[in-house]
């Protein structure tokens, strides 16, 4: 039997029978895998070792006849252990894993693996505010799903103007000029950066980040909600 070696991040775990666990992993080159980890049900490996959440592991597995393969071994590459030192970061970490699990098909692009890996790095770094990590993750997930809003032109196809104010039109997924709109050039510029392929920490260099986040994070969350329905 051919053994396959790849990196993986645990997305979910469930039990199987008396002693086994089925793990769903995200990998950079084999999409999503469902692997049976034998004999780990009632040993101390729960909450520890190479099948721990918030970590990247090198896994060796054998493909099964059905959709579930068999995990042969794991080696922890990097555990983002600071995340679990903070309850809010832990809860957001679980939420981001859940969102990514829901958003991805069985054969997601490697970029999804990279996004989750970068999200763990950001959550693990306490200098990056939690709301920034959350905003950045949603924007990046929307981008990977092909749901980046139009941040260049308005509903009429005119280029967004520096002195104008806008409201967001969810049906058209772009801005509409409005005399008392909540979004100006600064907010649009920040949104463009949020949807660009950067790590979360890059956004921290922006002046007035706290105010900007308060202004644009609700919009990005609403866009995400829009695509859920």
């Amino acid at each position, binding site marked *: 039997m051919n053994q396959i070696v790849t990196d993986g991040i645990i997305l979910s775990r469930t039990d199987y029978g008396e002693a086994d666990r089925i793990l769903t992993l995200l990998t950079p080159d084999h999409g999503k895998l469902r692997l049976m980890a034998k004999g780990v049900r*009632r040993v*101390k490996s729960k*909450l*520890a070792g190479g099948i721990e959440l918030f970590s990247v592991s090198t896994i060796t597995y054998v493909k099964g006849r059905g959709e579930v393969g068999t995990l042969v071994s794991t080696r922890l590459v990097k555990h983002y252990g600071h995340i*679990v030192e903070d309850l809010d970061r832990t*809860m957001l970490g*679980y939420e981001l894993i859940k969102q990514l699990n829901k958003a991805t098909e069985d054969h997601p692009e490697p970029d999804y693996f990279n996004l989750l890996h970068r999200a763990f790095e950001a959550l693990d770094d306490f200098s990056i505010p939690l709301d920034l990590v959350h905003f950045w993750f949603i924007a990046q997930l929307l981008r990977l799903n092909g749901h980046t809003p139009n941040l260049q032109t308005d509903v009429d196809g005119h280029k967004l103007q520096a002195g104008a104010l806008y409201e967001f039109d969810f049906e058209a997924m772009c801005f509409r000029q409005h005399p008392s709109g909540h979004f100006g050039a600064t907010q649009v510029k920040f949104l463009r950066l949020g949807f660009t392929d950067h790590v979360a920490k890059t956004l921290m260099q922006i002046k007035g980040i706290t105010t900007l986040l308060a202004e644009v994070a609700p919009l990005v969350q609403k866009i995400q909600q829009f695509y859920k329905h």
Partner: protein
Amino acid sequence: MAHILLIEPNTVLAETYTQALQHVGHSVVVVTGAQAAVDAADKQTPDIVIAELHLPGHSGIEFLHEFRSYTEWTDIPVVLNTTLTAAQLAPGVNALHRDLGIREVLYKPRTSLQDLVRVAREYIAAVA
């Protein structure tokens, strides 16, 4: 009466809670950490779990995700008795109820022994 898994890192509080719960006829297993809680549930399935979130080592959140990932433990009522305030819990409180099936959150500094006994009785009765 019921079997209660009490996850409480403060030994004085754990002893007090245990006495109150035993006084009304429950059996109580006390653990101070997440891994010990999983092990205790493995040894004897609890009828209800009363848990603090602030634990040494793995947090209560980690325990709850692990606990809920086992099908036979999915429906066991879990009540939080925590020092975290409602404001501190606010960002994730929906996820606590929706994803982790938390039945009730008690603010420990304001929770009397009678409150704890009442909550245990209420949720044990609900699954009986």
